[in-house]
């Protein structure tokens, strides 16, 4: 059998040329896709005890939701200045897990990010004279301030933050046990963002 040693060597040189072209092209494509990548708007953290899901809502999404339920323009304008994150928490354990929003810390580069307590929002609605029915609907779309999640329970709602265009993180703590005497759980989500229109 005759072996042609020349051809493989030439083929290899050609191969390297093509390979370097592919690498360049891939690098360009990757750089472009990174630049064009949409900003992330949903996050999930899951462990053996809980599953926490967060979805940032755009001002347009929130306006559409509340407008469809008859909210007046004054309220819609207020809502547009806030950052809404729809949050769902599921207790995967066999024990009660206490969720207290007071133990959730949102932090940006500048320090703590303000979260609006439902009572602050209620006061604001009363200030602008929002009808009781809309105040009620709004309250029910918020996640409770405190809730003892039972095994397999999943509850959720919106968290309302001060609007920012900077990334921020969440450090959330939970306590297990009906009497709040059990294991402390802590989860962290980084690079959260308010959704933009």
């Amino acid at each position: 059998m005759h072996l042609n040693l020349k051809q493989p060597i030439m083929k290899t040189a050609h191969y390297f040329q093509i390979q370097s072209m592919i690498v360049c092209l891939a690098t360009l494509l990757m750089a472009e896709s990174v630049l064009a990548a949409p900003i992330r708007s949903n996050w999930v953290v899951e462990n053996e005890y809980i599953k926490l899901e967060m979805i940032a809502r755009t001002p347009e999404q929130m306006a559409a939701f509340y407008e469809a339920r008859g909210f007046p323009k004054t309220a819609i304008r207020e809502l547009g200045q806030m950052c809404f994150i729809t949050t769902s928490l599921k207790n995967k354990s066999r024990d009660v897990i206490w969720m207290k929003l007071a133990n959730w810390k949102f932090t940006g580069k500048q320090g703590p990010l303000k979260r609006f307590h439902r009572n602050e929002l209620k006061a604001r609605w009363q200030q602008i004279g929002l009808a009781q029915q809309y105040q009620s609907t709004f309250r029910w779309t918020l996640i409770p301030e405190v809730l003892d999640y039972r095994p397999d329970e999943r509850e959720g709602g919106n968290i309302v933050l001060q609007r920012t265009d900077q990334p921020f993180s969440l450090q959330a703590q939970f306590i297990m046990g009906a009497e709040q005497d059990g294991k402390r759980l802590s989860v962290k989500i980084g690079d959260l963002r308010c959704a933009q229109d």
Partner: protein
Amino acid sequence: MKRLTKFINIALLVFVTGSIWAAPLSTPKGILVLQPRPAPALKLKDMDDNVYDLSVAQGRWKFVHFWASWCGPCREEMPSIQRMVERMQGSSLEIVLINVAESEDAVFSFLAGVAPDINSLLDTDGLATEQWKPRGLPSTYLVDPQGNIRYVAIGGRAWDKKDYIDFLHALLAQSDK
């Protein structure tokens, strides 16, 4: 001695039977047993503008369900409530639905599509719902014939499934004894 043994046997029988009747039923998934507490008053208009007062159903088990058409789990659950209503027809269970702070149009157009045979009370300002303090929406309470809240369902449930229908029938049977 014979008399004493007979007396003890009867006493034991009464005790055992009594504790079986008083024992809480085993609950299907997502139904929590609560410490009995009086159900708040509930007096609201329904979709036909008739006033309904929960106290008229005193002496019967009541299924009290809070919902809103914008709530995803409520929308998923409602068809199963419609089927449960059909399956519980002829029973003494009082089924009461309360819409939370929506317009009559919103309630009517939603129910017409998914549960046309169901009438709902309209808590137009949401204040009656506040009295009941549900954990979230949807929420279902089971109120005993004496007017005490005894069970709460966590989130949406497939009410037309056997486990739940059997449980509701068992509640009714327990109160019939």
